[in-house]
């Protein structure tokens, strides 16, 4: 099952839990399940149903631009991290 890391700033919602494993095929499924497990999770990282533009999703160290529809593999590691601009 994919491992999802709970951002440190949202661990107040997860009761300190740092990561969870859950059955999911894409980011949307992850977000919705986490929102059930940790109510309020979705509102913290989404705007208008999409990942907040100030965040990006890292799946196995790849910064996906696909947001909620990005696919995850059975052994994927998923992080929600700040978006980066470059010079």
């Amino acid at each position, binding site marked *: 099952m994919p491992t999802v890391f709970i951002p*440190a700033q949202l661990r107040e919602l997860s009761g300190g839990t740092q990561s969870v494993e859950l059955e999911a095929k894409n980011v949307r499924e992850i977000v919705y399940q986490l929102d059930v497990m940790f109510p309020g999770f979705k509102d913290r990282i989404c705007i208008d149903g999409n990942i907040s533009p100030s965040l990006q999703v890292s799946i196995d160290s790849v910064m996906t631009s696909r947001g909620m529809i990005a696919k995850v593999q059975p052994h994927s590691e998923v992080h929600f991290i700040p978006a*980066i601009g470059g010079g």
Partner: protein
Amino acid sequence: MTTTQYRVIGSRPVRHDGADKVTGKAIYTADTKLPGMLAGFVLRSPHAHAKIISIDTSEAEATPGVHAILTNADFPNVENKIADLGEGSVNLSYLSANCMAQQKVLYRGHAVAAVAATDVHIAEEAARKIKVEYEVLDSVTWVLDAMEENAPLLHEDIVTDSMGEKADKPSNIPVHLHFEKGDAAAAFEEADGIVEREFKTATVHQGYIEPHAVVADYNEDGRLRIWTATQGSFTCRQQTAEILQIPLGNVLVTPCEIGGGFGGKITVYLEPTAALLSKKAGRPVRIAMTRADVFEASGPTPGSFMRVKIGAKNDGTLIAGEAWLAYDAGAYPGGMIGPGCMCVFSCYDIDHAIVDGYDVLLNKPKTSAYRAPGATQVAFATEQLVDEIAEKLGMCALEIREKNAVKEGSRRVDGPVYPPIGLVECLDALKQSEHWNTPLDGPHQGRGIAAGFWFGCGLKSSAACTVNSDGTINLMEGSTDIGGSRTSIAMQLAEVLGLEAEDINPQVGDTDTAGYTDVTGGSRVTFATGMAAYEAGRDLQQQMRTLAADLWDCSADDITIGEDGVFSGNGKAVGFKALAVELFAAGEHLVGRATVAPECPTNGFGAQIADVEVDPETGKVTVLRYTTIQDAGKAIHPSYVEGQLQGGTVQGIGWALNEEYFYRDDNTMANASFLDYRMPTMLDVPMIDTIIVETGNPEHPYGVRGVGETPIVPPPAALANAIYNATDTRMTELPMSPPKLWKAMQSEQASE
């Protein structure tokens, strides 16, 4: 390590745009002249923070030669919409208000009105006749002051966002970030050695030699044409269309040759203004910033306050890290704090770390990216602490870095683990270098080293190649060429097709002709647009294979394409050119195309060695020798890779030693000129030796990693470490200018 032998890649052809650029023929934005073109001038705020009470343009309007005057009333209302600009996102209302102040001016240099006239002098004189009544407000330019509860508030509607959680009252802190990995508090308890310091860095500017410039022609049919100095024509098109609230498809952006950017020419400043002036005047309008405008109203990159702490075991293993970072955002949110947090410990495998970061609004121009934005500041802190703890533990500065360097599988504080990376290889190259193995031999001299990291991104790129009847190729791509990228992109296409670099005629297209391409930034162009060119070449080859099968009376599957681009099958072996000529004669006109969107960061690591001599009487630092080492994955055009390393390093040296925004008591900038901003001249730096490490990037067909940004990261830290080794004085504030270093040396002597 890549061992493949290439024909074109790794060679050093003369760049395609070279002759134009050494004869003065290359056309930059300010060189563009359209029939009937007017000159624009932007009137800017003399105050750091003020309410605009009224603007009276009547006298200016009556000036002969004036064709249009613009104020904030002419700008459409844009909602608080967040626009994704490919590389980062922006709130459009802030972007618009940064182009033309709305109710308040938030920094000296903030645009308040603009004039278009037959001549720039007339426009300027008319602009000076515009009467703006201000109510001057208290202002703030130091990051910690701006965070105070009773600080002058820049925006009434901004509250702190802590990953989606909003504070209940407004403040100058739009964003608070927090990261944790492991249990830092417990790890510090177990540490045998701990070092902690506070650091400050000054606001610095990208310092491109070409001031921002734009030409806009708003056509009667609603079509807007823009020629501009931008790092990204597509993002410029989007920003302009969104601010003006016009359809994207109505805007054509032609990127002219660009005189440097370094991250500072991504945000639009002048385009909407020029467009609206053109619309009002019914004629094309050109606006160019003055150098003072550039300093006061564009860029810069954040000044910062940082408190960083690291802990290690006696054997030198770094086990704990803690960082508290506050970065200037400037007048609007969206600073560089995210990457700052993610880079503070990015070179070291530290199991337990905690990082807090704050984006802080203050009365400076809105900060923008500058080469590895946010990373140089934190490297200045961490790389000094690493030296300090090594000294405490009796280790050598290189040894402790080798022991703790991140490698494949190391996890960053923000979570992701690294794929294969090259820091260890860079440190090894440093260790083997002639520089490292040559001792210093004079008084007041010192050597310092530092490592650096920047993510390097992929984003989206497109390329199309049209085959000419002689088998040469016109390559159309969309990446503004700031430093020879046309050639490094063309070389990758030449390599795959078995051609020479000179057989490719690369062109940077405008937004109507090139496929969508993100900015020239993020160290991505040679990597991603190069990949697009490679894929376009592959596309062409597949088409040619199919067509050749008809020609040669065999099945396409029977035809193979060699590494040298030779098509072989049915007893024939024909190179690209010959086959293309044959196909053209047979009536086939070929176009290859590709779009790519690689998503894996290219992870550029580097390490640098600095030798300095410090004048004990004046505190002036002379850089004696410098070596920059960088993992390029694979260097396509080594000369231009070296150029990136050397240029980034010298920018870092400037940041380290003399560059800074000075503020007067009224919080207006005191040194908005090249004379007083003090970027390095040729006389201030030595030759910059380079060592290119090539670890190969598995995500790119030729193994390319981005190299543009990382070289600016280590210099302040490497020089601070060198200064310490020369003087026993730890410099925790940038720049380490002579008055500051002299003062610090005096205090050091007094405390001994």
